[in-house]
């Protein structure tokens, strides 16, 4: 089992989610995050003072899935999440040591 972490544009979330759901992945977590990267936030002006917010808002996805689906999930994110502009985000892959379903104590791939 692998955990796929992706920082994506919030505006691409719906398309990525649709693609991933189409693969049969039913379990994912996402949250709104702030971060810094190569894309700069648009400059703002507050009461005559220009400022550049240090961070940009993004969405972070976490998907734990079986090894067989990892490449397809990554492809979903790469295809649907890409705009070609700086700031499309990143994907990281981790090994998952174990998984449990809390309701009935299923373990391993059955728990996904």
């Amino acid at each position, binding site marked *: 089992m692998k955990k796929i972490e992706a920082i994506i544009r*919030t*505006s691409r979330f719906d398309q990525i989610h649709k693609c991933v759901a189409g693969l049969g992945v039913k379990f994912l977590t996402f949250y*709104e995050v*702030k971060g810094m990267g190569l894309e700069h936030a*648009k*400059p*703002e002006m*507050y009461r005559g003072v220009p400022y550049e*917010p240090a961070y940009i808002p*993004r969405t972070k996805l976490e998907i734990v899935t079986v090894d067989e689906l990892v490449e397809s999930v990554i492809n979903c994110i790469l295809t649907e999440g890409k705009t070609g502009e700086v700031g499309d985000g990143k994907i990281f892959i981790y090994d998952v040591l174990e998984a449990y379903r809390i309701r009935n104590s299923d373990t391993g791939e059955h728990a996904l």
Partner: protein
Amino acid sequence: MQDLFTVNNLWMMIATTLVFLMHLGFASLEAGLTRSKNTVNILFKNTIIPAIGLLTYAFVGFNLMYPGAEYAGSFFGFAGFGLSLPEGWDTSNYNVGYTYFTDFIFQAMFAATAATIVSGAVAERVKLGPFIIFSIVYVAVIYPVVGMWKWGGGFLNTLSTPFYDFAGSTIVHSVGGWGALVGAAMLGPRIGKYTSRGMTAIPGHNIPMATMGVFLLWFGWFGFNGGSVLSADPGLVSKVFVTTAMAAAAGAFGALAVSYKMFKTYDITMVLNGILAGLVGITAGADQMSVGGSVLIGFIGGGLVVLSVVFFDKIKVDDPVGAISVHLVGGIWGTLAVGIFGDLAGIGQFFSQLIGVVTVGTFCLIFSWLIFFTLKKTVGIRVDAAEETEGLDINEHKMHAYPNFAAKD
């Protein structure tokens, strides 16, 4: 005599401040029912609109709406630019109910309502500059001309059975409603609202603020209707307070009943819209209705608003706050209700009400279409897709309403 004049004028000034506060109501309601990435933009529009109303009404509006007795029965009249104090302007010789300035400022508070209604329907995708231009023209010219047709002594007032609109179901609310309809239709729906698989809900970001907004509007309506008595007459003003409050309360239940029947939920946004629909509905005849009549008018108005919201979504006219349903549909219902219920009920009155609805509707449709169309063909009226997705706050205003929160991309 002087004491009576002082008391009347005092009530009219209080009513003025109550109507003024309705702008805060509109601002809160619209902000609450739209997304946080557009909040600065909505608030900006709702802040600049009262400013437009006051300034244009002083410059042209007041004298377009009340050009003088020599224009009785006509379509258009103008008493000149700016305000000019007549002899005895601050005495009961001007009017037993109010001074010239009170007259002006009370009426001026109503003027911007027409544009503020439109701002809700065009929210989240209209370009700021063109919207301000539309508002200036609509508030400075269209609203006062329509107002003159009835309150300024024009042709609606001199029909054999005069058209009746106590506080403005047609003159204020439907004028805004028609502009809202044209604006929303010409702009098109928000991105993602109507997809091949059906309709997407785009929930507002702050229900508490929307609720506060409606209560502020209800609060202000006591001045809107109470002040339209144009004096502190204890019988009339107290009666209007009661009919107004009853219609609002019944509107809540009318909306609750229909929305529960249709959706099986207790939807607060529908109930809030229902209260407003009840208020708009009683506005044409608040001084003519019995308690029972007010309850009926409010209840039906509340039910109608829910059906109307569903209808406009069905024909793909995206109205983020339900402005068209509350003010146009509610305004037409309230106007026609004067011919159906209350002291003026009768077939002749109903007919006159219909004439008012149709003439005002035609005029407003044509002119709001003309203004929006001209703007569309010259500077464009809708922000581009990337800006709309990112949010109007950062793109039109270079700032966020909630800078320390993670905003949606």
